[in-house]
């Protein structure tokens, strides 16, 4: 082997060895860089809308459930589920009638009605209030039947309800509703409080619960 070739092979071997030795470092560097890129991703997804569910039980077991779902994820995954009544992100309902109530007609009526109180019941057992207020449908129930009161408050943007009923007849469009929900600001959708449990469903831009 000539000196020139020997030098060439030596250099090649040196470069190859250096590359091999440093390649794991490259992998490590990528791993080390991962948190940084994760932070970037977290920041980039911070504009995303998250649906949070929190259930706190104050019974002996003291159970707490926290669920955080990105709305975009739900929007993309729901259409992939085709099972029973759920197809393409839509749920089939029977003739849009529930206990002989035409839901679609009811929604149409509420949509076209001005803000106001639709139902107000006040009794010794419970208080019920159904109202449309600032483009939100509000349902408030206070159960006073036993000594331990329970309270339910549901506040759904009208745009979400519209989107939910925007599919064809006898269908609820869940994906459209989620999409409409993602356009809303931070808001509490459901709140249930009784002597044992507290349930909260809300929407914000954080990917962790408090």
């Amino acid at each position, binding site marked *: 082997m000539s000196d020139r070739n020997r030098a060439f092979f030596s250099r090649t071997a040196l470069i190859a060895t250096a590359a091999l030795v440093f390649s794991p470092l490259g992998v490590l560097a990528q791993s080390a860089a*991962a948190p940084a890129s994760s932070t970037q991703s977290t920041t980039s997804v911070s504009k995303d809308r998250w649906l949070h569910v929190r259930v706190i039980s104050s019974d002996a077991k003291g159970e707490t459930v926290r669920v955080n779902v990105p709305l975009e994820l739900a929007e993309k995954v729901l259409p992939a589920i085709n099972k029973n009544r759920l197809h393409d992100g839509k749920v089939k309902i029977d003739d849009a009638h529930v206990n002989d109530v035409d839901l679609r007609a009811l929604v149409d009526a509420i949509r076209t009605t001005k803000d106001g109180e639709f139902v107000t019941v006040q009794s010794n057992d419970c208080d019920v209030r159904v109202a449309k207020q600032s483009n939100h449908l509000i349902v408030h129930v206070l159960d006073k039947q036993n000594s331990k009161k329970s309270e339910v408050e549901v506040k759904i943007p009208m745009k979400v309800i519209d989107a939910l009923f925007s599919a064809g007849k006898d269908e609820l469009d869940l994906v459209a509703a989620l999409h409409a929900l993602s356009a809303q600001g931070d808001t509490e959708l459901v709140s249930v409080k009784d002597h044992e449990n507290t349930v909260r469903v809300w929407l914000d831009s954080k*990917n962790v619960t408090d």
Partner: protein
Amino acid sequence: MLLAKAALGLGGTIVLAGAYTMREGVIRVDVDEYRAGGSHVHLWVPAAAVPMVMHFVPSKHMRHASEQAREALPVLHAIVKELKKYPDADFLEVVDRDQHVRMRMRGGKLQVDVDAPDQKVHVLCPLSAIEDVTSQLEEHARGA
């Protein structure tokens, strides 16, 4: 001199193979059952090895698995695709006096932890590994 070259070649190959194998991270499964005869499983598998190993699975078994998973595959595919956008996020947490269940993403890996008095289960799986498995099952489902 010849021995040195051989050692260099072998060493280099091992380092390269190691780097290639570990590039996608490790699938980690830890199961500890605290009862008489309970099992203790601790498994570390390079994620990059999963698609390679799947190529050696007999076609009839892959087809069977694809058929079994046919309904779930599109959902799994969509979930994995979307989860990639959330490399660090907590999705589910259930805590009570005795148990703690958690499902979250950490550094692009899906992490499931179950801590109960009678058992502990910890699973850490890079999304790329789930994606590889899903893709291969989908390919076999199409071919079936």
